[in-house]
């Protein structure tokens, strides 16, 4: 990731597609692992861990959406609904049957995948904006169903409290514990996606995205792969919903409304469609930016405004700056933060002999 080579020396497809393009990449991963597993949890205040926790959950959701929208080219604005399917499946299993998280979590993902395939069926006949509307319908139907079926929602309040996840008798009930819990699943999701996109399935997804008729002609069963993309993407969303449920200790459908789907779309568009690093950067950017703007304003703003006025100014300014920065980044690099990062890297690849 941070390494650079002086040129392109790859001679085989195998080398080109390797997870670690250079031996030094293994060291980079090792250093990152050391930072996130040892250094960060030991040195950082719990507050910053809680922000990282939110980012980890967002990364899982953003990766899932990027598989569908970025890699396969199927627009979905029902992502949050699939999260709620996962959340309620896991919450019901955990509360009614008392199952541990390592069963409820994949079960939530699987259930979301099944529902995702059903909602994804219109993708076999329509694409683009039409598909967006179909998935929007899916979002609204799922929201309505959860709201009106007490068997799913657990009563009029449509919320189910779950216990903290525990493993070998250790309950993950502090931000520090939850950090490791969520880090594990975020890393798992990242590695799984990296491998998925360089597999046969991943290449089929990209072929479907680039030109589905051409893909069909070269022998890709586009129905199968489109539905598979919906299933995999929804699985990630379901897992993301389960993680939210365990993180907050409650499944509540108001956490998964349409606006959340839009937030996740924003993450992958800002981060970069069709890239794993882009999903991560997008999740970090969208989660962190409002917080950074607020902390900056609290420190600088006190020069200009008094306490009570500031609260109003921060809120307004945060929205304005957030929107402005998104526009700025997308003008500078329409393909997102990931492309920006790659541009920087390729500049330094030949630096200082850039001619």
């Amino acid at each position, binding site marked *: 990731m941070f390494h650079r080579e002086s040129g392109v020396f790859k001679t085989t497809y195998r080398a080109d597609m390797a997870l670690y393009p250079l031996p030094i990449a293994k060291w980079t991963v090792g250093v990152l692992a050391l930072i996130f597993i040892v250094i960060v949890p030991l040195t950082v*205040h*719990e*507050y910053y861990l*809680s*922000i990282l926790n*939110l980012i980890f*959950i*967002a990364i899982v959701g953003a990766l899932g959406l990027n598989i569908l929208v970025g890699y396969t080219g199927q627009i979905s604005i029902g992502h949050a609904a699939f999260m709620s399917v996962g959340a309620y499946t896991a919450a019901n299993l955990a509360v009614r049957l008392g199952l541990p998280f390592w069963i409820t979590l994949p079960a939530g993902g699987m259930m979301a995948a099944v529902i995702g395939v059903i909602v994804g069926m219109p993708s076999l006949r329509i694409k683009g904006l039409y598909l967006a509307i179909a998935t929007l319908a899916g979002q609204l139907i799922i929201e309505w169903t959860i*709201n009106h079926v007490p068997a799913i*929602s657990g009563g*009029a*309040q*449509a*919320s189910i*409290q779950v216990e*903290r996840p525990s493993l070998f008798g250790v309950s993950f*009930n*502090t*931000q520090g514990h939850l950090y490791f819990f969520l880090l594990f699943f975020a890393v798992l999701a990242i590695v799984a996606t990296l491998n998925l996109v360089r597999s046969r399935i991943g290449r089929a997804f990209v072929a479907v995205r680039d030109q589905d008729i051409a893909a069909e002609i070269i022998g890709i069963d586009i129905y199968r792969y489109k539905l598979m993309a919906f299933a995999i993407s929804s699985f990630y969303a379901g897992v993301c919903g389960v993680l*939210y449920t365990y*993180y*907050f*200790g*409650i499944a*509540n*459908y*108001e*956490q998964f409304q349409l*606006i*959340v789907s839009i937030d996740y779309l924003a993450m992958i568009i800002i981060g970069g469609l069709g890239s794993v690093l882009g999903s991560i950067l997008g999740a970090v950017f969208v*989660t962190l930016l*409002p*917080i950074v703007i*607020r902390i900056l304003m609290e420190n600088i703003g006190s020069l200009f405004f008094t*306490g*009570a006025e500031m*609260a*109003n100014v*921060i*809120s*307004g300014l*945060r*929205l304005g700056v957030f929107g402005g920065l998104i526009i700025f980044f997308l003008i500078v690099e329409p393909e997102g933060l990931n492309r920006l990062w790659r541009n920087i890297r390729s500049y330094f690849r030949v630096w200082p002999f850039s001619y």
Partner: protein
Amino acid sequence: MTKFVRSWLGIAATTATLAFGGGQALAQKELVFGLQCDRTGPTATVGVNLCPGYHDYIALVNSKGGVEGFKIKVLEVDNEYKVPPAMEAHERFKKEGAVLEGLFGTASTMALTKKLEEDKILGTSPGFGTASAADGKRFPYTFPIAASYWSQAGAAVAFAKERLGGNLKGKKIAYLFYDNPAGKEPLPILEDLAKSEGFEMRTFAVPAPGVEMGAQILDITGRFKPDFIITHLFGRSPSVSIKELKGKGFPLSKVVAFVWGSAEADIIAAGGMAVAEGYNGIQFAGVGKDFQVIKDIEAMYKAQGKPVPKELDSTVYYNRGVFIAAMHTEAVRNAIKVKGGAAPTSEEVKKGMEAIKGFTLGGLVPPMEITAADHEGGGWVQIWTVKGGKLVRDKDWFQGYREIIKKHLAAEASKS
């Protein structure tokens, strides 16, 4: 010892006390309150008036020397009515050592319930969260401190009964509600009361975002023809309901709205006070400017040479902000008194909140009594009616069908 030496010794001693003892005391004498707010999200209409009320009351307390000598510092985080930022806000408050926090939003109240309990920081959620949060034994660190939707439902029926001549037998009541968990929450209470009071109740759900309810209103006024309407709507929808009911010629004096549909903003958006003549709203904090504390806040602004902010005119939400701030400071005051003047911990502040009794702030706060078991404080409400271009108090603090609410709370508690 000469007089000269003695006086110098005295000065030296005083200086030393001021420098060391006094300095220490100054450094400690600050308490941090966390306030979550929504100034930009879907409930921004509430937040932009409620939160300034909170800040102004705290500023007033600080200008008078603070609570028992402690200055209060308020940290505000705008959570946009979203859950993840609410969690971040809570962790931030915890990091800064907040002794309590004000929550904002039903979903975030529910998402933080567990965390508050684990971190032992009390959170107040007036008008948010579930009715069962009133049960302090089940939810030790969540404090609704205001009438829940169940209590409001009881009060609404009691008010209808009074307006309809003291007997509901054979009468028809329509319940018009926003189709979300909060909207559906009062249903068990209303169904129970319909049985015991002998009235016929029918429910009319308004789907989100609640700006289109022509069909429901037509159904109510044209087909069901009720004697009374209870509405429970949020955001833009209360003003739409006023407009639609007015358009169909239903007398607004036979309509009563829950707490989020009874602010000046809702009535003005419906076409102004003149249009909504007779409209009734339930309130959990006093309305209007006729309170000593509001006059004090105005005086504070005048003393600083600043104009009085326009938020004060939106008295329903502004006063609720003042109400929340007053409850927070009162809880802290109780905790400091128990500790004999030392800075309280968040657990002691919780005990202080549970000791609030007979604190009325000149009528702005209901005569509530918060105990370890009852975090709602009794579910007191007032009814304010639009009369002659302004909101007029129609019914002073009362509790509606308290026994029935208590029965339901006990049933909820036995379920878990």
